[in-house]
């Protein structure tokens, strides 16, 4: 028994301790140090700040995290909440989608277009910060009318917050909802 401890547990304990120092402490500190030094904004949550009328600054959220919008003068993103776990073909899901469709229809009864899928389905994180370009365009007329500005002005803002595709092919064109809404508020 004593030999077993000496031959197996003792080196195991020492190596675990060494690995904890190297991989747990050293490595994490190194990445944190370099991250804070070179990528300060990204490493600390990509927080977006806006200046109020009196000059004070306020954190309104992270550029990377979606937040709820319900009023019709805002670009509305995907449903916010916990991650979706529903079967896409189940009854629970069908009812929820119908509710969300009804919400958009009630917000803008004149809009007869079909609603893009991403607006009425829950994302994997529950805080998807983006919507598809189609989903943004679907809402242009409503936002313009509500804010009494031209549709072109709204489209311009959306365009400014659309990410292109990586290398021209990878991924889909997407719109950052929070970015658009901050810019829309600043227009006035």
């Amino acid at each position, binding site marked *: 028994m004593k030999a077993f401890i000496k*031959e*197996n*547990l003792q*080196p195991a304990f020492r*190596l*675990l301790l060494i*690995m904890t120092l*190297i*991989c*747990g*402490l050293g*490595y*994490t500190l190194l*990445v944190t140090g*370099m*991250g*804070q030094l070179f990528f300060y904004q990204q*490493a*600390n*949550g*990509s927080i977006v700040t806006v200046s109020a009328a009196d000059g004070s600054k*306020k*954190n309104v*959220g*992270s550029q*990377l*995290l979606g*937040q*709820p*919008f*319900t009023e019709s003068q*805002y670009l509305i993103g995907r449903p916010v909440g916990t*991650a*979706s*776990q*529903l*079967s*896409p*073909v*189940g*009854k629970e899901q069908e009812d929820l*989608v*119908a509710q969300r*469709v009804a919400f958009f229809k009630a917000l803008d009864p004149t809009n007869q277009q079909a*609603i*893009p*899928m991403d607006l*009425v389905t829950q*994302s*994997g*994180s529950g*805080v*998807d910060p*983006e919507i598809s370009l189609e989903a943004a365009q679907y809402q242009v007329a409503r936002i313009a009318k509500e804010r009494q500005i031209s549709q072109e002005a709204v489209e311009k803002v959306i365009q400014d917050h659309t990410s292109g595709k990586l290398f021209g*092919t*990878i*991924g889909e064109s997407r719109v950052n909802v*929070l970015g658009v809404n*901050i810019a829309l*508020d600043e227009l006035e």
Partner: protein
Amino acid sequence: MSAILINQLLFLVVLIGLGIPLGFYTYQVMSGKHVWTSAFLAPLEKMIYRLLGKQAKVEMNAKKYTFSVLAFSFLSFIAVMFFMLLQGYFPGNPNGAEGTSLSLAFNTAISFVTNTNWQAYAGETTLSPLTQMLALTVQNFVSAGVGIAVLFALLRGFISKNSRNLGNFWQDLTRAVLYVLLPLSLVIALILVSQGVVQSFGGAVETYLLETGEKVLVPLGTAASQIAIKQLGTNGGGYFGANSAFPFENPTVFSNFVENIAILIIPVALIVSFGLFVKEMKQGRTILIVSFILLVLALIGVTMSEYYMAPHFTDVLANGNLEGKEVRFGIGWSSLWAVSTTAASNGSVNAMMDSFTPLGGMIPMFLMQLGEIVFGGAGSGLYGMIAFVLLTVFIAGLLVGRTPEYLGKKIEPFDMKMVCLVILTPPILTLVGSMIFTLHPDSAAWLGNSGAHGFSEMLYNFSSLANNNGSAFAGMETNTTFLNVLGGCIMLLVRFIPMTAILFLGENLGKKKMVAVSEGTLSTTNGTFTFMLLGVILLIGALSFLPVMGLGPIADFFIHS
């Protein structure tokens, strides 16, 4: 659809392009050769061996190697338990996380030590940054390192003659972590931070919602460093509850690309290293081809199902199933990830598996049920695959009436017993686990969906636990004492029974002499053998799981179509 295919093809090309050179490098590292990183790392390595003392130099047979693995894993288990239960008393806890329940600590400790990374908790609320860093990040490194070490112990059995020596576990583990995992993680972590993955010791940031002004706390943490190794080491345990779907873990298409490469690159590289190690590149090629065929078939299946089998809702523009998926990843990157993470025993998710279409969710489940051998976990995937190769050699040998041989070694009854332990442990534990869960009176209440989809949830989760994958159909309530204990035991058995069998297989092979290649030797590199191996893998998987699949995803598919 065509854009999706081009992207996925591009991904596979980059994967092979990076995997092959890494395979050469890993081979040199694990054979104890001098590599270009030795300039920085050799002094550190020497110092570690000095601290370990005499044991770092001895030759180990299977028994000794197994004891070393078990001793190290046991102490790792104790260390994780220690941090989880007592984190409330330690510093590095800006959000005031308290010690977890005993059953959760038990489950999580086993989960991380066995390279499963099943998570019954949400990291951002349940764990302190100190726990994530000193307990979980460390296990991400060393559990992957243990897998790689055991793989090379087995391979030494193939190349040695009349010897019981499998190498030295402490050296193997040290070299795998120090030379392979650590430098790669560092590079990947920095790329991830540049994309917006958080890496900070600060507590949550106060923000005020734009529309309502309501106060919301944005969680930070040392995520990038942990995520880099969670992908590379085929671990998969997220820093945040929503795993790699959460924007702070995976913010952009580029970060997604890098993380997805990281999931598969070590298993791909190890197959190349295997070919080099046994001095027959063609043997590695056979395994690489079979793995790629299975991966691509699965990828096509999942992508098609998510794209074409999505539900249609009234007044909604139909363009695939986006429930549970992030807009930045869409159908293409989500499907690719789902296939990669279940092929490679990673278990992280960038879209919610529970919300895949019935067939789109069945394919990842089947990839796990094949025993995590299609690339599989770091090290463990390849030694599982080699067990399947030996089984195929054995069956083929019986069919044509030749003595089964592989890599110049005769395959005899003891070897086949060990192979059976490796191959049969996971399916047995999957099915027995599912059965015990189903018999529990409260089981229906723990499921997140009703009907056949609920059954799929349970089956998926036990397939994940009993193959050390760790991904979940997460609608199911997982943090219950019953499931924590049952799942913990399953993960423990399925990691260490096959691992021990592999080490004894290695020793037994090493004791034998080499058989010269002759006319009568069955080729294990030609098309016939490749096809036969593919057949054996699919047959074992299908025989084990087709009936139970019929109750879950297949029923789900027919009910809703």
